[in-house]
């Protein structure tokens, strides 16, 4: 196990360096001079321009610039935003809870609905339930979620008026962020209706973001279950006269979980990609919207730092999935 752990950790390092190189290189090849962009319409005198080139170190060799960037990254310094003048690292962690809260709710919805759907479909293979569930899963999988979001807004916000269109909470409520998670903070604040407001803001974005992972989890659970249900020990359990829920739930699902857990872990990347669209549409102040806005504003340090942080998140989650996978299934370790 230790050898597996170490070898897996060792592959993490070159990938991390590679991601650093990519996010660094992107900014250097972007068209347009970042300093001119930063100066805006007022323009710059030649002396001030030179001063700023030196300040940002653009006059030094690329390799030196990269080394500075890389050592900075290792110390948690991702540079300063051109627009807000705040450190990118601080901005990332100020906004990250919003994305985390949204993604967490989405993945909970996806698991709570997706797992049973997959099990029911597998148990009723070829019957009506199977077909209905798998057809809906395929529709969900094919869904352009930006359109799905607009559709839900038309129905639930426009026609029915049940949910708000954007933001995390009504402007009526104000309280200092404690944890950064609106659901918890609104409860802590003790203000009447704050929690309900937070939930009402959260519900549509979570549904939208959950759609594709839900479909993927349902499909994966079904196929993993089908594979397991054909095994000998399931036949044994059945012939022993165990109740079907016990066989399906305990014997089969437990063994079908391994590929499902992998899919759940891998859907983190999917969630972050989905968060870009979901957060933009619902004006959700999280990482996705922050990245899109920075790209529009050509705020290079934020694009560079944000890309790196997001990739790092995905890599860490993939690493954890791999390690747990190795923990559950000893065969993997030997490879």
């Amino acid at each position: 196990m230790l050898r597996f752990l170490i070898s897996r950790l060792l592959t993490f390092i070159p990938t991390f360096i590679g991601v650093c190189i990519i996010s660094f290189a992107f900014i250097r090849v972007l068209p347009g001079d970042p300093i001119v962009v930063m100066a805006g319409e007022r323009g710059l005198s030649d002396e001030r321009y030179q001063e700023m080139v030196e300040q940002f170190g653009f006059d030094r060799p690329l390799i030196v610039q990269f080394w500075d960037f890389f050592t900075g990254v290792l110390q948690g310094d991702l540079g300063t935003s051109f627009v807000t003048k705040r450190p990118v690292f601080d901005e990332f962690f100020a906004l990250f809870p919003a994305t985390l809260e949204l993604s967490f709710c989405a993945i909970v919805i996806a698991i709570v609905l997706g797992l049973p759907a997959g099990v029911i479909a597998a148990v009723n293979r070829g019957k009506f339930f199977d077909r209905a569930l798998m057809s809906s899963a395929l529709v969900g999988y094919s869904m352009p979620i930006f359109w799905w979001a607009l559709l839900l807004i038309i129905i639930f916000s426009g026609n029915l008026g049940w949910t708000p269109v954007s933001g995390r909470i009504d402007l009526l409520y104000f309280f200092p962020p404690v944890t950064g998670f609106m659901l918890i903070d609104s409860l802590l604040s003790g203000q009447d209706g704050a929690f309900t407001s937070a939930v009402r803001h959260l519900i549509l974005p979570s549904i939208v973001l959950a759609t594709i992972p839900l479909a993927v989890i349902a499909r994966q659970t079904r196929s993993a279950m089908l594979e397991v249900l054909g095994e000998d020990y399931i036949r044994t359990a059945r012939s022993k006269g165990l109740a079907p829920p016990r066989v399906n739930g305990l014997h089969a699902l437990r063994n079908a979980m391994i590929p499902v857990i992998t899919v759940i872990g891998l859907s983190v990347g999917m969630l972050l990609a989905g968060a870009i669209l979901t957060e933009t549409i619902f004006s959700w102040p999280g990482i996705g919207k922050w990245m899109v806005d920075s790209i529009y504003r050509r705020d290079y340090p934020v694009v560079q730092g944000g890309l790196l942080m997001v990739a790092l998140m995905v890599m860490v989650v993939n690493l954890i999935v791999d390690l747990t996978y190795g923990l559950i299934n000893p065969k993997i370790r030997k490879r």
Partner: protein
Amino acid sequence: MADVSSSTNTTPTDAATARPGRFKEFWRYFKENRGAVIGFYVFVFFLIVAIFAPLLAPFDPSSQNRAATLVPPFWQSGGNWTYPLGTDPLGRDMLSRLIHGARYSFLVGTVVVILAATGGILTGLVAGFAPKWLDTIIMRIMDIILSIPSLLLALVLVAILGPSLLNAMIAIAIVLQPHYVRLTRAAVMTELSKDYVVSAKVAGARLPRLMFVTVLPNCLAPIIVQAALSFSNAILDVAALGFLGMGAQPPTPEWGTMLAEAREFILRAWWVVTFPGLAILVTVLAINLMGDGLRDALDPKLKRS
């Protein structure tokens, strides 16, 4: 030289016992999946619409009629048969724009799949045949690309290249390419240990022949399935980029771009938002249905059972 890939029909004995032709056999398995056949017909329908768009569309997709802005579809009060699916805020016919939009979606799917598959298959073949150090380097690079969420990477790439449909296609192709590399490499690895490859080597086949003639045809099944899946992914992602203003630029009647233009009217005119998205959904769904059927038909494990 033994060309294993096309030697299925070498000994035709009795018509009843002979194996059916490759395509016939494929179609027989494909046909069993009713959803896949429906998907196939929908796909063909959209393809015909895309090809004959200028003949089918009643209006020019970018001609504006200031007298008829935001006309609802014909079944709603205020709608008429001149504009069966209504008009957008600039008085352009929705139906004509949707029909022309089909062209862009198919263009996007085809170009992206060709770019991603060519690059990915070549890189995957090289990785599969290469010495271990080169293989490691290639696969690490693919890991790096895969660790960045696809849409985010595409977004940044388009920001670098400048927003346009072509650049969006290039960005999506780069993002989708690692999947082909992984698939091809894995398939090559399994094939390389098989006897027919060894015998081809012994018979003196050189590396290019070994790569492209001996091994590659036997790796194609998973790649074809992947091609179907990435065709639909490409349509979705390019529409998403268009929606974020980083893909096709207005007034191009690309479905994602149409949605972006219509966003501010969602609560006033449901049809300008509903139809382009529905078109994306139906196309992508049809292709995914086909992909499922392809997988079932090409997967040897399922065939035997």
